[in-house]
């Protein structure tokens, strides 16, 4: 088994639009700014808040606007985080694309209201009912033909693969925290066992969009005292030997990644300061651990316990041992 190190980290969170900003805000004890979700005024969800993302210029960070039209909000966040991580690790320069793996998680389907509104409005009959006939006659012609790219769950990671020229083994899991933790475990194992020279591992989620928000509250996954936050994290993992050979600075040594069944209650250690980022949360937590220049405890003081909703009653504790290289 090879020693695994992190050589690139990218973050877009409610605490900062880059890894450095997020880490600095975290260390300083910062909490996300929040704003009310105006869409729910006058309803049972009135007063619900979401975390505010800091301002960013996606086209500048992604080198142009050409691909943005294909991207959902989560895809934009994921591509920005991946660009930051891959640039830092110089993946394009140092690795043959086919030996770079991509291990990702994505959240609930989350097309923006603005994307689907024309389709729905044009497909509603005079009785306020959805009409398949009107969808065919008016709804589809009024809809952005690229809508499917914004809805399909694999698109955000595939956009990362295109943007960063990643051509190796890959997995994309969805839609909750446990799946993100599984992607991280797969990535770490792939590097440790030599299946890939480099693993780009990450997740992006946008649970603050109205449809996702309603569902999360409806399902009891987002408590009344919790608030959602959009976010993304990507980390580049490679072997210590590979980093040393090319003189690549090591950000953290990742001695182990483990998923163990536990009976303790689910725990998102970022939630009360950053908001709940669901599928992105374990990856943000891992990235922060790598940036923490210390033990995992520097990040959260506890492990990340993910409920595995697809296996009722199951919970997985994500444990990592990461040591900052500083």
């Amino acid at each position, binding site marked *: 088994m090879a020693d695994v190190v992190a050589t690139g980290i990218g973050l877009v969170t409610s605490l900062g639009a880059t890894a450095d900003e997020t880490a600095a805000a975290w260390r300083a004890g910062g909490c996300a700014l929040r704003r009310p979700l105006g869409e729910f*005024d006058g309803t049972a969800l009135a007063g619900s808040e979401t975390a505010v993302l800091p301002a960013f210029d996606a086209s500048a960070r992604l080198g142009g606007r050409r691909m943005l039209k294909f991207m959902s909000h989560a895809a934009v966040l994921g591509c920005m985080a991946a660009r930051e991580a891959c640039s830092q690790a110089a993946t394009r320069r140092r690795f043959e694309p086919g030996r770079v793996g991509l291990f990702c998680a994505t959240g609930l*389907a989350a097309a923006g209201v603005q994307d689907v509104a024309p389709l729905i409005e044009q497909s509603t009959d005079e009785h306020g009912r959805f009409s398949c006939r009107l969808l065919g006659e008016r709804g*589809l012609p009024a809809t952005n033909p690229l809508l499917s790219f914004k809805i399909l769950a694999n698109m955000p990671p595939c956009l990362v693969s295109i943007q960063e020229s990643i051509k190796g083994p890959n*997995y994309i899991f969805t839609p909750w925290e446990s799946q993100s933790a599984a992607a991280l475990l797969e990535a770490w194992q792939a590097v440790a066992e030599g299946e890939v020279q480099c693993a780009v591992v990450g997740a992006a989620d946008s649970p603050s969009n109205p449809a996702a928000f*309603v569902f999360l509250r409806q399902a009891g996954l987002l408590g009344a005292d919790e608030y959602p936050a959009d976010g993304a994290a990507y980390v580049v993992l490679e072997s210590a030997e590979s980093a040393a050979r090319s003189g690549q600075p090591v950000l953290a040594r990742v001695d182990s990644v483990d998923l163990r069944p536990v009976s303790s209650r689910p725990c998102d250690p970022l939630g009360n300061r950053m908001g709940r980022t669901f599928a992105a949360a374990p990856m943000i937590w891992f990235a922060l651990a790598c940036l923490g220049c210390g033990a995992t405890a520097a990040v959260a003081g506890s492990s990340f316990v993910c409920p595995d909703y697809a296996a*009722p*009653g*199951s919970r997985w504790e994500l444990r990592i041992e990461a040591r900052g290289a500083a």
Partner: protein
Amino acid sequence: MNRVGITGFGVVSPIGVAREAFWQSLADGRGGIGPITRFDCSAFSVRLAGEVKQRAEVPAGDRVDAIDAIDGIDAISATAATAGVAADDPKVGFALAACAEALGQAGIASLTRDTLLHLGVSLEAFDMQKAICGGRPDFRSIAERSMRPGAPPLQIPLDTASRLIARRFGVPGRSLTNCSACAAGAQAIGHAFRCVRAGRCAAAVCGGLDSMINPLGVGGFQMLGALTTDNARGESACRPFDASRSGTVLGEGAAVVVLEPLDAARAAGKRVLAEVCGYGSTLDAWSLSAPDPEGDGAARAMLAALDDAGIRAEQIAHINAHGTATRVNDEVEAAAIRRVFARTWQRIPVSSTKSMTGHLIAAAGAVEVGACLLALVMKQVPPNPFLNSVGQGCELAHVGHAAVPFDGEYVMSNSFGFGGQNVSLVLRRCDG
């Protein structure tokens, strides 16, 4: 490292529910594509699909009513299950039925903590009516309505089938939901194969499920221009590699295989249907909607699977192609096959079973692994019933209109996903 055997297979498809019906249709070259009956598509330019016509029996079970109050989502899944979730999201019912059949063949009564459950699925089903209030998409009203006690869930998350399988058949050690589009089912099987081989789990239940035969699914693919509008063709509308091909046709269904360490399965007296021995997974990193024109990603997936299996290209004796019947994809796949199998492609029989099933998207790879598995077991490779004139650039040793006898040892199944995800799997004959 364990050798990995398939001990169970279950399928729900447009050409048959359950193994025997599925295989009989494949062998006879009977297509399952016809007019869409699931919704009024009269105003759509696409009016054909491969619908599951036979009722897929979802096994009853007392676990379905259990509610775990801590993981709040379970309350919703229980409600959905008791109300017949298959009505809201047909693919979920397909998955339950396929899983029941596969587990039954493998002689597994329930999933346990040393079992991996890994399913591929593509897109949430979304009831458009739920997004309308007062004649428009008004989230204020939608929120108000959705938060009333007993209101149906606004979304049906992609892991719903896994959750219901766990309720019905027992909780697995780990459950993964793979969303790698058209490669998802094959990738789920490939990952599960790796896990069983490495001894990370004692058994794996894996495959894929999908149904995009709904207004948004058909409409979305219609907008992308991926579906044929040649509605008059009926059953023969999907013609992979044919000169007259004009696009793919959506199908629906699910397929599940049970993987176990081969030696352990044999020691337990189980019949091993075939061995999974190679898996390759790559990315095109080219385009969201079109394959790399050189077929580089597809070729690398095939080569990786061969390398993983430890065999030479010359040992592959049958290929189940991804074969979507879109203009570009088929040409690119054919070119990639010719490149990888440079010395033998002219004598490797190629079947493209989407001609009969339609494109089952996330379930396609799993269904086609099933077709390969049955080709090995039944000693026949399926025909290409609607392939009349091979298109330029699509030259391969395509099987004709009738199934042909087959006694080869290794077969390959290709799955190349929208977005540029490529998967190839190698299966090996395992008589007895």
